[in-house]
C-alpha cells in the first residue's frame, strides 16, 4: 500500500496505473480495515474457549450438562465475523477485477473501456463493502429492521459491479480478440462472475434469501463468484506472466486442454448446486439421510458433481506438469511476447534482474492502455515510450 502511495516511478500518476495495481491497492486498504474485526472476534473466541469467558457463549446445555457460560451473544460473533467477511470477498475479487481488465485489454488489443469509471467502481465497491455485512445474517435472529437497511446497501453495490461487467464487454466489442489461453480464462471469468453476481442479487433480498439461506444455492453463489471466477483470473494471470517470470512460454495445447476441462468442469460442479439449493437441500451436510423434501434423484446429481470435481482435479495435474515442463522446454518468450504496454514487459532483462531496471528507473509518459492507437507505428505503445514530439527531439543530433 505504501509502495503504491509513496514509491511510484516518475510519471506514474494514480490515473496512469494499470487496473491490476488499482485492484491490489484497494484490496490492501480493505484488508487493513477488515482484518481488525476478524482479529478481535478471534481473540474473544479464544478467551471464551481458553479462559471460560462468555463473550459469545450463552447458557448452554451440552451432552446433558450445563456449561459454565452465561449471557454471551452469538450474534455479536456473527457481526464481527461478517464485518470482516464481506470485505474479504472483495479483497479476493478486486485484484481479480484488476488483472482481468489488463488481460482483456492486452489480448483484445483495445484500450480498456471507461478507465476512470473502472477505477471509481473499484474504489466504490471497496467502500460500500464495509456497510453490507449483515446480508449474511438475515436469518440469524438480529433485529429484523437491519434486514431492510442491509438489503438496500447490498443492492447498491451491484451498480458499480455491473458497470465493471459492462465495461469489460465494451472493451471486447470491436476488439481484435486473440483467443490465447489468458484470454480464454478472462472470458470464462466474465461468464462465471456474471452468473454468481446475479445469484447474489437474489440472495441480497431478504424475502428471497430466507428460504435459500443455508442451502446449496448459497454454496453455488459463492463458488461461482469467489471460487471459480477469481481462480479463472489467477490461471489467466499465470499464463500471461509466466513468460516474464521464466523467459519461456507455457505450452499452448496443454493450456487449452487445462482451460476447457477446468472451465466446463467447474460449471458442471457448481451449476447443479443452484438446483439442489432450490430443492431445499441444506449445505454443510456430508449425508442427508431421509427427508420429506429432498428427492432421491438429488443423490444422483451429487454423484455427478463428485465425478466432475475429480475431472477438474485431474486437469490441475496437467497444469502443474505444464508449469514444470515449460520451465526448461517451453518456447523462448522474448521480453514482450504479448506486445503489452505495461512496465513489467519493458524491463531490460527477462526474467528481470535484481532491481528490475538496472541503473535507471523507467519514466512513464502515458496510461497503460495505448493499444491500436491510430497512426502509431505498432498496435501498442509502451507506457515508458515518450510522446512523439519528444522522440523526434531526442533523435536529433
Amino acid at each position, binding site marked *: 500500500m505504501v509502495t503504491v502511495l509513496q514509491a*511510484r516511478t516518475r*510519471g506514474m*500518476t494514480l490515473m496512469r496505473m494499470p487496473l491490476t495495481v488499482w485492484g491490489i491497492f484497494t484490496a490492501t486498504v480493505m484488508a487493513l480495515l477488515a482484518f*481488525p474485526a476478524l482479529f478481535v472476534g478471534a*481473540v474473544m473466541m479464544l478467551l471464551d474457549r481458553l479462559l471460560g*469467558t*462468555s463473550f459469545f457463549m450463552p447458557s448452554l446445555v451440552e451432552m446433558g450438562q450445563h456449561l459454565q457460560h*452465561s449471557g454471551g451473544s452469538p450474534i455479536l460473533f456473527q*457481526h464481527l465475523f461478517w464485518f470482516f467477511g464481506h470485505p474479504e470477498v472483495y479483497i479476493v475479487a478486486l485484484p481479480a477485477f484488476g488483472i482481468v481488465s489488463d488481460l482483456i485489454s492486452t489480448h483484445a488489443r483495445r484500450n480498456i473501456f471507461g478507465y476512470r469509471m473502472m477505477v471509481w467502481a473499484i474504489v466504490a465497491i471497496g467502500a460500500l463493502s464495509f456497510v453490507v455485512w449483515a446480508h449474511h445474517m438475515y436469518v440469524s435472529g438480529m433485529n429484523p429492521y437491519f434486514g431492510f437497511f442491509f438489503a438496500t446497501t447490498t443492492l447498491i453495490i451491484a451498480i458499480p459491479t455491473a458497470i465493471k461487467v459492462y465495461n469489460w464487454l465494451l472493451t471486447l466489442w470491436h476488439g481484435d480478440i486473440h483467443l490465447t489461453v489468458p484470454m480464454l480464462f478472462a472470458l470464462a471469468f466474465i461468464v462465471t462472475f456474471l452468473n454468481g453476481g446475479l445469484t447474489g442479487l437474489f440472495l441480497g433480498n431478504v424475502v428471497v434469501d430466507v428460504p435459500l439461506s443455508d442451502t446449496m444455492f448459497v454454496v453455488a453463489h459463492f463458488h461461482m463468484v469467489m471460487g471459480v471466477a477469481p481462480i479463472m483470473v489467477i490461471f489467466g494471470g499465470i499464463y500471461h506472466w509466466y513468460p516474464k517470470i521464466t523467459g519461456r512460454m507455457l505450452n499452448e495445447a496443454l493450456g487449452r486442454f487445462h482451460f476447457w476441462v477446468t472451465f466446463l468442469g467447474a460449471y458442471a460442479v457448481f451449476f447443479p448446486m443452484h438446483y439442489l439449493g432450490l430443492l431445499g437441500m441444506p449445505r454443510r451436510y456430508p449425508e442427508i439421510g431421509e427427508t420429506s423434501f429432498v428427492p432421491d434423484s438429488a443423490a444422483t446429481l451429487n454423484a455427478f458433481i463428485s465425478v466432475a470435481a475429480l475431472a477438474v482435479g485431474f486437469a490441475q495435474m496437467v497444469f502443474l506438469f505444464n508449469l514444470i515442463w515449460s520451465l526448461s522446454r517451453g518456447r523462448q518468450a522474448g521480453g514482450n511476447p504479448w506486445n503489452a504496454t505495461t512496465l513489467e514487459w519493458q524491463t531490460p532483462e527477462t526474467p528481470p534482474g535484481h532491481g528490475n531496471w538496472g541503473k535507471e528507473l523507467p519514466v512513464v509518459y502515458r496510461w497503460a492502455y495505448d493499444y491500436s492507437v491510430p497512426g502509431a507505428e505498432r498496435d501498442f505503445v509502451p507506457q515508458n515510450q515518450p510522446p512523439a514530439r519528444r522522440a523526434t527531439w531526442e533523435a536529433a543530433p
Partner: protein
Amino acid sequence: MDATPTDTGEALARPAGWRGVAADWSSDQRAFKNVSWGKAMMWIFLLSDTFIFSCFLISYMTVRMSTTVPWPNPSEVFALTIGGTSVPLILIAIMTFVLISSSGTMAMAVNFGYRRDRVKTAALMLMTAAFGATFVGMQAFEWTKLIHEGVRPWENPWGAAQFGAAFFMITGFHGTHVTIGVIFLLVIARKVWRGDFDQEKQGFFTSRKGRYEIVEITGLYWHFVDLVWVFIFALFYLW
C-alpha cells in the same frame, strides 16, 4: 547522456481547493508530499489499530447492553479507601493524569528533535518512558487488587460475568500497547543519545543524517495510545 528526458506530459496549472488536493494526490511519485514511507506506514498502522480498538470497545458496549444480569458499578469497583474514606476512581484519575502528562513530554521531545537537540530529546523521551512505565505499574496494581477481590475473566462478586472478561481484555490490550511503546521509546532514546541520527550510522531505524524523524514517528504511536486510553476511560470507567 545527462539530458535524460524527464518531462512526463504537459505541466498543468495547479488547481485550487479540492481539485488541487486531488491533483496532488494523484500526481506521480508520492501521494503524500514530504512524507517519508516510514511516517506513512505508522499512520497506516495506526488506522488499522484504531479499527482494532473500536471493535473491542463496540463489542464491550454491545455485551454490556445485552447482558441480562446487572453490570457492576465502576465507581464502586474502582474506588480506593484512603484514610478511611472511599474515593471513587482515584487511581484511574491518577493513571490518566500520568499518561496525559507523558503525551506532553513526548510532544516536547519531538519539538527538540526538530531542532536536533540531541540531549534534550533523549532526556524527554526517557521521561515519557518513565511516565509510561508508571502507568503500567499502576495498572498492574489495579489488576492485583481486583483479582484479590475475586474478579476473574469468568466471574466476579458483583454482577455480569462479562465485566471481568471485558476489563482484563481491553485494559490488557491497552497495557500491552503502552509497554511496547515504552520499549520503543527506550530503544530510540538510546540511539538519539548515542548520536546515531547525527552520524548517519547504519542500523535499524536509522534515517538520513540530521533527521530525527523517527522521534516523531514514535511520538505518533505514543499519542495514539494515549488517545485510546481516553476512550477506554470514558467508556469503561465513566459509563
